[in-house]
């Protein structure tokens, strides 16, 4: 179900703890609604064993060569 202006207003009142301007709420719904719909449409089953990327982790471990493991 598309995210509505009223749902955004309710979220701000109940969870954020402050009111939101109705025009801003409508615009927020227009930004977040399609993203939420797109994410919800992704089948979660293939993601069952996939962990989230973690902020600040290196994208890949630094390259290592076999010589790195050779005792000095």
């Amino acid at each position: 179900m598309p995210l509505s202006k009223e749902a955004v207003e309710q979220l701000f009142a109940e969870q954020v703890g402050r009111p939101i301007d109705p025009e801003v709420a409508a615009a927020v719904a227009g930004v977040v609604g399609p993203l939420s719909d797109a994410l919800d449409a992704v089948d979660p089953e293939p993601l069952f064993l996939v962990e989230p990327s973690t902020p600040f982790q290196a994208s890949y471990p630094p390259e290592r060569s076999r010589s790195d493991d050779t005792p000095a």
Partner: protein
Amino acid sequence: MTPRHDDLALRPVSELAPLIRAGEVSPVELTRQVLARVEALEPKLNAYITVLAEQAMADARVAERHIAQGDYRGPFHGIPVGLKDLLMTRGVRTTGGSAVLADYVPDEDATTVVRLRAAGAIVTGKLNLHEFAYGVTNDNFTFGPTHNPWRLGSIPGGSSGGSAAAVAAGECSAALGSDTGGSIRIPAALCGVVGLMPTYGRVSRYGALALSWSLDHVGPITRGVTDAALMLGVIAGYDPLDVSTQPLPVPDYADEIADGVAGLRIGVPRNYFFERIHPEVRHHVEGAIRTLVELGAVVVEIDLPGVELSNVVEFTITLAEATSYHEHLLRGRAEKYSPELRVLIEAGEAISAPRYLKAQRLRTVIKQSFRAAMERVDVIATPTVPHPTVPFDQPTVTLGGVEEAVIDCLIRYTCPVDLSGQPAIALPCGFSANGVPAASLQLIGRPFDEATICRAALAYESATEWHTRHPPL
């Protein structure tokens, strides 16, 4: 007596540095010529938020004296550089392109600024950007739009639009930008210059105002590939003040990028990157790949499954992280945000934790896709952006029968690489018949292997003449 040079402001750093070292070009004269262009062109371009003319001239005199005394510090000694105005500068206001921080004067420099100053660079000023780096048009609500120097009235791209416009116009010899969804490479593409996004963890972001911590990168925007590699050599490396940086040695890029592309395996994606693309962009990028093959590279077709979700993943992560970053500013200065930014900052509150984490899990899938592809190739070649610059008053573009917002279009080929964390370089590869940059080639590399993408980019650049063109201002 220094030989006369009237065109210093448009020369690449790689040409200027040996002349400065030899005493044939004066940093004072170079800085004077750059500042003269700033004064002449700023009424048209608006690339700068703050010009530091007096300080730059004073620093240039110091650099000239040190070099004359034999204290030459390397290729950026005496070179005028501009800084995107989200990099903190001690004693100089750092606005983030927003009224929210219009009077913010940091008491320290960002790590990249510290390193550039230590290398002898001359800071000419703080460059315009999309407010808080949160967009791609550079139509700045508080400080006014930066115009594309190739076509006034059109966007320079963003969010580092001031950086790219200033470099293209000779208002500085090189600049720093930042890239969260493409904000170095997009303006580089639209302004016909080179943009290099380093590997996540290669360059410190300490002292850079954040947009999205897990996606932000700081990197060079320059007039040539060698300049980008030289600048990366100055700013790269571990920084204890940025937990994302890796304790890896920084190569001497100048030594590593001149070997050509013979035998280099270039992956060309079969999916996503050539879909819904302007025909002129496709034509030029395919031509650039053919040029690389003529130079000895080998093309390998690859697939990148999952990458089609990049825009959704990118926006979800950015919305949530940006809202967290701005929480304290929003509490005290909410009315100072532009209406556009206010919506985006509030929108992050409506991203639930499970959806944020689902986006980060999909990001893992995208990373795995790139990792698998990079086992078969050395470099991946794609267009940088699907479409050239557009006028400021054009909110959408239509490609392949699909109308989309300009930002959705322009980040499509760049944001997957922010998500994967790999390095990527953008360089011009074609102009339209009307003389405006039409296309940019993006070369994506293995993590921490910026040298190989610069090597391939330099081989292409050396075989073409796009980088020698300057906007007719």
